[in-house]
């Protein structure tokens, strides 16, 4: 009995010490609560527009994270605008001082205005974008015909103000075109569906009996580690794809039926670097950015909600409360959340276990001096035909003009360049349709338009030094 009591006492003492050391050593950083509450209330009372103290508090977390990786940031969850669906044609991710451009869609407003991957939009119509959430930013764009954005140039750090038109937004996470002996795939952005899209494209390439893939990851700076790891998994031979504080992304051993060429440049970061490292390939272009972060998103409770949850759960600390709610499958209603806190919790280790960093850039096997993406304006069509309906002699439409341009470059049209479907155009359409095995009925139907678009994009994709370098090795 005595011995047991002794053991118990020792255990208890040990536990007490352990708990005490945990309690007193962690979370030493605290601030004067009245002081900041007073300042928040003051700003809320005086500032011209109603901000709400919860939102001011959330935004102030941006300041706490000053000096940390820019992806550590607060974003508001407010959705306050509505309107027709349009955007600027750039994929964005949230950073502390605004929104970073992850990639730019071809022929988009963003592209025409000169925005490039890595630029940060930090003001929109003179409002700071730093505390805005990505959804309210997009919603704001949707409600305007044009916006004045202030942009920090990724190379020089200079700020410039640009007026940019919003346009009907089409989301192409992945562009692809079948070249003569290879499938060309460019990833613009990542979502949960991206790996399925890429899988589908790989399937159609394979169905054509091809085994060469050119995977274009240039000008792509997404920090979506999870979804890019899934894409990398499709073409990896198995093993580790990436590792972060959240865990390791592994895939089973598998046979890969493709020979892959990967295109990268100095703006390839994060997601692009994970894929380039994990997929056995020949790499073309220039050394990558060497920057990847694992970002975790936490809800930021309103003051009322925080008080309620901490009383209800008798737990102090955000992680504790969140775990408690998760364990009980309690949904947190939107009204309890003022925004989200994105915290960069770790860097990212690539497939060979190296931390992706400026010291561990991915260097190309074949250096290419010019890494500009060839099809950004879809030349010679200058924008693809918007496939909406059939055209025949007598039709008047801008699409007719675009089709004429493509037929001109193919060499079957040599009439007047205008928007009128004239007899010269009818002859050209027939000549083209015959050459691809369609019936020469004089109608520019939608499948012919799609063929012309493919031709246009193919021509543009081929007018690209990196693609040419890769194709040169494939021959």
């Amino acid at each position, binding site marked *: 009995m005595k011995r047991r009591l002794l*053991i118990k006492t020792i*255990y*208890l003492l040990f*536990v007490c010490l352990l*708990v005490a050391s945990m*309690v007193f050593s962690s*979370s*030493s*950083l*605290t*601030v*004067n*609560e009245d*002081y*900041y*509450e*007073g*300042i*928040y209330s*003051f*700003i809320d*009372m*005086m*500032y*011209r*527009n*109603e*901000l709400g*103290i919860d939102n001011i*508090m959330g*935004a*102030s*977390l*941006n*300041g*706490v*994270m*000053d*000096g*940390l990786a820019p992806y*550590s940031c*607060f974003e*508001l969850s407010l959705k306050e605008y509505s309107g027709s669906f349009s955007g600027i044609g750039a994929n964005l991710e949230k950073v502390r001082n605004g929104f970073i451009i992850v990639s730019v869609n071809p022929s988009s407003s963003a592209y025409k205005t000169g925005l490039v991957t890595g630029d940060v939009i930090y*003001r929109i*119509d*003179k409002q*700071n974008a*730093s*505390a*805005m959430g990505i959804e309210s930013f997009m919603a704001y764009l949707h409600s305007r015909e044009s916006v004045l954005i202030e942009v920090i140039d990724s190379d020089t750090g200079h700020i410039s103000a640009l007026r940019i038109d919003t346009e009907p937004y089409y989301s192409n996470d992945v562009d692809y075109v079948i070249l003569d002996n290879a499938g060309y795939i460019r990833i613009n952005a990542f979502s949960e569906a991206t790996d399925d899209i890429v899988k589908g494209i790989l399937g159609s390439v394979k169905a054509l009996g091809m085994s060469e893939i050119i995977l274009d990851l240039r000008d792509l700076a997404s920090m979506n580690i999870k979804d890019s790891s899934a894409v990398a998994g499709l073409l990896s031979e198995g093993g580790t794809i990436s590792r972060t504080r959240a865990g390791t992304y592994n895939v089973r051993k598998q046979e890969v039926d493709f020979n892959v060429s990967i295109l990268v440049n100095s703006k390839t970061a994060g997601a692009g670097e994970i894929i380039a490292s994990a997929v056995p390939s020949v790499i073309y272009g220039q050394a990558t950015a060497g920057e990847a972060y694992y970002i975790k998103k936490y809800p*930021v409770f309103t*003051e009322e909600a925080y*008080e309620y949850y901490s009383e209800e759960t008798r737990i*102090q*600390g*955000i992680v504790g409360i969140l775990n408690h709610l998760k364990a009980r499958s309690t949904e947190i209603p939107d009204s309890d959340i003022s925004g989200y*806190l994105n*915290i960069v*919790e770790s*860097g990212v280790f690539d497939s060979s276990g190296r931390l992706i960093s400026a010291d561990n850039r991915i260097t190309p096997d074949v250096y290419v001096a010019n890494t500009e993406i060839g099809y950004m304006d879809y030349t010679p069509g200058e924008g693809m035909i918007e496939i909406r309906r059939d055209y025949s002699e007598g039709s008047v439409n801008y699409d007719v003009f675009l089709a004429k341009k493509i037929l001109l470059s193919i060499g079957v049209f040599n009439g007047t360049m205008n928007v009128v479907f004239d007899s010269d155009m009818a002859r050209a359409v027939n000549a083209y349709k015959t050459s691809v095995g369609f019936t020469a009925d004089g109608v520019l139907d939608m499948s012919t338009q799609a063929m012309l678009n493919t031709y246009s994009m193919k021509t543009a994709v081929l007018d690209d030094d990196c693609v040419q370098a890769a194709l040169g090795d494939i021959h």
Partner: protein
Amino acid sequence: MKKSLKILAFILPLVLAVMVPLVTAGNGFGGVLNAYIQLIEDRSAMVVDTVNLEKNIIQGALSGTDKYSYFQEISTYNSQVDKYQDANFVGIGVTIIPDEKGALVSSVFLNSPAYRAGIKSGDIIISAGGMSVAGKSLAEIASMIKGPENTPVEVGILVNGMGEPKIMTINRSKVEIKTVAYTIYKETAYVRMTGFTDKTGEEFGDVLEKINKAGTNKIIIDLRDNGGGTVRGCIETARKILSDKTIVKMDFRYKGYLDIRYVAPENPNDYEIVIIVNENTASAAEILSAAVQDNDKGILVGENTFGKSLVQSSYLILTEEAYSDYSKATGETNMYVVTKTLPRVDIKPDDDEWLGAVKLTIGEYMTPNGNSINNIGIRPDVMLEYDGPIAFDQILENEIYVNDKYNIGMISEQISKASKILTELGYDTGGITGIYTEKVFNAVMQFQEDEGLYPYGVLDFTTQYALNNRLKLIEAGGDAQFLLAYKELTKGGQ
């Protein structure tokens, strides 16, 4: 062993339940802030900057506001007060921009110690008080140069940013910031306003007195590139030209601030006015422009204005430590003030007890007709785009300072200015050197003959005034917006 583990499993939650409430997080918004600061500290891959935490939090808190609202360092706040409220500061009278070699002089105030010492814009200050200023921030350099009135400071200067440094000892003195200047152009008064301080109304009043004496009531007010300043300076200026009219209406969000309508009382003076504006005419300068336009007191000529009608105010904030000390000592919690004395408790904290200030957009003004012009600007009555130099600024830079007579063999900057004007007029002075050569003598004599003055080759006061008058015509002739304003102002009258 197994049993003790069971006991442990039973006891551990108990222990935790007892221990955890000992580190209670507080309530209120401050409590939520602390909870998330702890989350960031625990989870972030990088270490939180605790040294600048207070400033960073407040800067962050303002990140959801507009571009005109931000955190100000105490030195910025102080220089703002110097510039706009007191309209003077003690220093040597230069504005500077940090440069890799030191501080590049961007402008020198008229009649300041630096001006008298011959420092010009384009010079680089490389040292102050024997210490290098290279790599220092603007605020640091300013504090090295500034000091008590009538004390000397030794500065190292690279003339035009090149060559061997020149060491100069300059006496610091009060530098007044002037925002209003005028000249008489033909039969009209041409008034230039470069900004608005609390002293601008007074300055404008002095200028009007001189204009009245000159016997004209036609005034061109040039508000181009005038980015505004204090509302007070603008209201006082408007009161001197409007009579029994509304100047502007202020609309504040905070209920403690009454929405104000500023009016101009009856005014015996009656002026005919044309205002020149451009795309950089903003804020207080737009209040004045709209007040004149909406009340049909005159017309606007030039370009659509900038469109900033939001009104800001700065509020000082104590450091967290000073706040804790003072609130404990006095029981007062309202520690945000506009002046440097804490309200009710009559304490004057030291500069290092202020963390800085928050500058906030607190309201918007409406023109007398009730229009909001934010992001829209004011459309002038007569539109004309023009990109070249502003006539007044050119006149000020090139006119002869009439103070002395000049004759053969003398050397002066005024001689080179006279030569420049003569050359512009087509007289051969043999180059612009500042030396009174025989060629200059002959050119002056020819000019005197052509102007109907006594032709004796001496650059006397009358001749210098005549040259200055010709200079005005030359410079005005190159400024399309000014010429249009003059035409509009004089077309009804004569």
